[in-house]
């Protein structure tokens, strides 16, 4: 176990593949910056890889105070064991109080392995992180300045705040797109620390035979307008309405988890806690009831239009325009109106 170190730094795991930083570590810097400032400690990025030194400067430009660089030929490609071992060693050595990971495939593969090895707590898919105090129920003991790990919980519209007060470090994964991207400041200076890496052949138990990457079918994060359909759309055939409305608006088609699970559309289009988090100018929610897990991924849209035949649908609670009606009538009317406006 790691000693409780209240002066410990705030860390982010700087996920990179082939020397390219993912978006999530940069997004984590903006939140990590705030947490570190609140605690009055340094914000550091841990960069693991082979030939990744120049990423340190980039991370500092985005707001990190320090970057720990762990380079080794065996870290060239991500593997659970090698990365977990190096992160474990770094955490042991520097005793950060908080470590944040992107809830990417690699982040969700790596963070629990480290949490298990350090016997620390880990909260998955946080939508917000704050610093706050907690009093334990049993002994009324006050624990100051803990990491509040905030995430939607299951069973309705519930948000849970999770803490760990007796195990260090406090760790959480955060979904991509949940935190805004900071602007880089090329004048920002920071400290780059090169770490010695010790790895043995046994730390690479996987042989990677083949890798095939495909571009995402849709870039929801970059879309100004999103038209999303839920289970209420009814069928894959009827989902054509979503595509048609999206097409005439130059928008990206999206969906709830329920619609994806029903096979209406590919997972790349999923918005919500287990999909993509978006903040477009306009979000049109069609046949979406608005579970908290979905709202977590779209509530920060500038304007929300909701179409649903159920006047009690929770989505109406966050909509700027609510249309109570049959989507099979409303959506074609919208398409017709937009096409007419475009002609004028």
């Amino acid at each position, binding site marked *: 176990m790691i000693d409780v170190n209240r002066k410990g730094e705030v860390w982010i795991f700087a996920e990179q593949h082939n020397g390219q930083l993912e978006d999530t570590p940069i997004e984590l810097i903006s939140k990590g910056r705030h947490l570190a400032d609140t605690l009055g400690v340094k914000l550091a990025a841990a960069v693991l890889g082979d030939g990744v030194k120049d990423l340190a400067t980039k991370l500092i430009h985005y707001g990190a105070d320090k970057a720990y660089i762990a380079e080794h030929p065996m870290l060239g490609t991500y593997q659970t064991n090698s990365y977990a071992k190096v992160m474990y060693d770094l955490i042991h050595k520097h005793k950060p109080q908080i470590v944040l990971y992107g809830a990417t495939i690699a982040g969700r593969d790596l963070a629990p392995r480290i949490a298990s090895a350090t016997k620390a707590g880990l909260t998955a898919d946080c939508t917000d992180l704050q610093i706050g105090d907690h009093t334990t129920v049993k002994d009324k003991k006050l624990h100051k300045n803990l990491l509040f790990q905030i995430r939607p919980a299951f069973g309705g519209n519930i948000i849970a705040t999770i803490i760990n007060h007796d195990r260090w470090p406090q760790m959480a994964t955060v979904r991509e797109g949940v935190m805004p991207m900071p602007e880089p400041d090329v004048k920002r200076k920071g400290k780059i620390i090169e770490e010695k890496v010790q790895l043995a052949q046994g730390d690479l138990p996987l042989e990677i035979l083949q890798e*095939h990457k495909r571009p995402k079918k849709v870039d929801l994060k970059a879309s100004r307008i999103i038209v999303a359909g839920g289970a209420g759309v009814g069928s894959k055939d009827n989902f054509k309405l979503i595509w048609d409305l999206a097409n005439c608006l130059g928008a990206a088609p999206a969906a709830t988890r329920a619609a994806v699970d029903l096979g209406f559309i590919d997972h790349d289009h999923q918005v919500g806690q287990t999909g993509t988090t978006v903040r477009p100018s306009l979000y049109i929610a069609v046949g979406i009831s608005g579970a908290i897990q979905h709202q977590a991924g779209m509530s920060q849209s500038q304007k929300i239009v909701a179409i649903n035949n159920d006047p009690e649908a929770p989505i109406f609670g966050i909509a700027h325009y609510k249309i109570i009606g049959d989507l099979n009538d409303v959506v074609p009317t919208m398409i017709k109106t937009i096409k007419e406006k475009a002609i004028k």
Partner: protein
Amino acid sequence: MNDDGTVKRSALPAIFNPEDLNALELALQIKDKFGGHITVITMGLPAASEILRDSLFRGADVAILLTDRRCAASDTLATSYILSCAVKKTDYDIVLCGRQAIDGDTAQVGPQLAEKLGVTQITYVEELTELEGKTITARRNIGNGWQQVKAALPVLLTVTGDANEPRVAAARKMMKYKNALAPIEVEQKIKAENPDADEADIKELVAHKCSKLEDKGLLIKQWDLDAIETDLNWCGQSGSPTKVHRIQSVVLAAKETKQIEPSEEAIADMIHELIEDKIIA
């Protein structure tokens, strides 16, 4: 919810977590193709026996119910520790888990269990491509594509919903195992049937019924934390570093909601307003 903010499991029906069904299906496919012996372990309340019977209907060889009040309030770390103690009691080459549960969605127990067992993990498995001697080749989802990896056994796989279409229960096995029970279920049943019997009588009746079931191969194995030799400090509440600070019901609200009639005119006005506000270009 319980007062401490943990989930009140007894208020929920025991369901087969969807991706655990994919994991079981992959195990069955391995057995069909390469042979082997499938043990299904679940940690939960006595009602979780339902899932074990379902596993037997589908083709599992052995079912083990891991049930103990001291498991209550376990987070993913404590859960993976308890499961690791149970798995260590078995003879295994491959541990299969669903990628994640549909309640918490954390996807943490698989990797944590792999770490506790000290075995290689292959997460997000979509397909098992080869199993030869002591090596396994699998295709895993890496978000923006896939990766084919090879590893020496033992391994732990977490299986996604895309891996397969779980088979349904076999009628013949259903007939055979519909009466399979775990000892705790036998006890509950006998208590209900004999409300006036004293404890000693109940105990005897339970022992008798269990041995009869065992002879027929219908006794679901039941383990508690003592049976799997856990260190209680790492189980339940004390083994769980994450605690609930607060639970809030959220009512997210728009600052101002305009109701639009589903008429052509009203919709045209709304579109017009969105264009005026430069929301639609």
